[in-house]
């Protein structure tokens, strides 16, 4: 293992975050706080309780998941896309660094950044509502798994994209709708039966459900199904990345 190289790329990526502090850390916190004010305080005051939890507290896990997913995705995709755009990727590809190390460094940095954002949102939320975390270990498990999985997905998108438009396409048109429709702001049981079935095809449902369970012990689907689905999603991302490495897809001619 070339640990120096992993360190170099990781800190290079983290330095980029620090340079763009407003964009990377502050803006997601502000936008999530806005969600919180609008959905939690304004609308939430008209909804009494969901599954025995106040609406304000109910949406906290969903909000954190939403930002983990979008942040991991955009950080990782931009992180690997930009060197391709500028051409500086050449030095990483001609250095004694394996694809595995490249992935660990980029995905690790993206996951770290989104985890930071997630943690800040958790703390911000604690200022608005009373939070309880019934299963902290599971909470952390879902937290880390989601950051890493979506960073991997972002990494794939960043390699696939050959324009800034494509880079925005998947996060904006696929992941955001899936996250919104995945029960960030409501319980699946609040939907009509047909839509409950449709919703089960949305992979994000399982992530949010499991994560919310770790807070309040309430879930739309069972914990094990959530965990299994997260694992499946992770495995798919890893398989695609494995294929990219074997073929050099878009990276090497």
């Amino acid at each position: 293992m070339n640990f120096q190289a992993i360190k170099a790329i990781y800190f290079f990526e983290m330095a980029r975050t620090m340079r763009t502090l407003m964009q990377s850390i502050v803006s997601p916190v502000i936008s999530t706080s806005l969600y919180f004010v609008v959905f939690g305080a304004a609308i939430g005051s008209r909804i009494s309780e969901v599954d025995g939890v106040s609406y304000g507290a109910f949406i906290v896990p969903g909000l954190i998941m939403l930002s983990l997913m979008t942040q991991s995705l955009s950080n990782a995709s931009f992180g690997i896309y930009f060197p391709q755009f500028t051409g500086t990727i050449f030095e990483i590809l001609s250095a004694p660094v394996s694809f595995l190390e490249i992935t660990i460094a980029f995905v690790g940095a993206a996951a770290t950044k989104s985890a930071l954002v997630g943690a800040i949102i958790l703390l911000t939320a604690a200022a608005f509502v009373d939070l309880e975390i019934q299963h902290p270990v599971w909470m952390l498990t879902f937290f880390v798994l989601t950051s890493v999985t979506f960073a991997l997905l972002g990494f794939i998108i960043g390699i696939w994209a050959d324009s800034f438009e494509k880079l925005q396409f998947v996060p904006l048109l696929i992941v955001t709708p899936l996250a919104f429709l995945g029960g960030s702001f409501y319980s699946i049981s609040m939907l009509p039966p047909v839509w409950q079935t449709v919703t089960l095809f949305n992979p994000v449902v399982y992530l949010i459900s499991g994560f919310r369970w770790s807070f309040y012990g309430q879930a739309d689907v069972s914990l094990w199904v959530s965990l299994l689905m997260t694992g499946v999603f992770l495995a798919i991302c890893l398989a695609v990345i494995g294929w990219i490495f074997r073929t050099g897809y878009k990276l090497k001619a």
Partner: protein
Amino acid sequence: MSPIISVQSLDKTYEGGFQALKSVSLDIQEGEVFALLGPNGAGKTTLISTICGLVIPTGGSITIGGFDTQKDYRAARKLVGLVPQEMPTAPFEKVIDTVSFTRGLFGLKKKPELIEEILKDLSLWDKRNNPIMTLSGGMKRRVLVAKALAHEPKVLFLDEPTAGVDVELRRDMWRLVGELKRRGVTIILTTHYIEEAEEMADRVGVINRGEIILVDEKAALMQKLGRKELTIELVEPLGVLPEGLDGQAITLSDDRRHITYSYDAQAERTGVTKLVTALSQSGVRFHDLNTRQSSLEDIFVDLVKAKS
């Protein structure tokens, strides 16, 4: 001594069928400066990129320092520094950070004194805290060279190092190549500028349409293929060439004041004596003689023309 780089029957066919390299074999000796010449699109950059691991070969093998670039890519790549032809730089990075970053990529611990020395050598020290996007094109080129040297490579690839740079930087590059050679670094450069190869290279390879068509010592190449030209300046204009001299190799200039004779300097009989004797016997007076060795450029143009 075994070569530091050995390329054996290397093939590269791009998706879409374009064959960029056709069974290229080439050995580079340790410590030499090797110039790879060829017209645009000849395969120079593909060859370098394949050796450096940026392009996956379709066939053949490459070793660097005895390490296979596919199976033992870590050991092989550690020996190599690459300055690409394009100037890809991370626009927002500081000069010193980007140079240190490359060292890290090659698995080496920080060595600030070395980075300082490299930046000073390349006149970049004053700019070390500037973001790269604020630098001029020439300065960016220097940054790329600094990056390529940050991990103390034994082999340095310079892909068109002086394309579009000013005279000062070109001289600096030449000086740098000389200095690195003294330190024992093997240098492979590609160039359009034949004068560059003439100035710096020990050996020259010519590539055209994906094939290496010639590799030789620069001096030997120039001797072997180099023809000499003798120009005789006449005192008075000459109407016609004296009889017996109107062969193919002898021409009279349009102003009728110069006779040019092209000959093979290596031949046993160059024909110079015969020409001069014949001229004086015919009473043609001349007041100066001038000989010129054909340059690598002439040789190169001839070679590429002959093969295409």
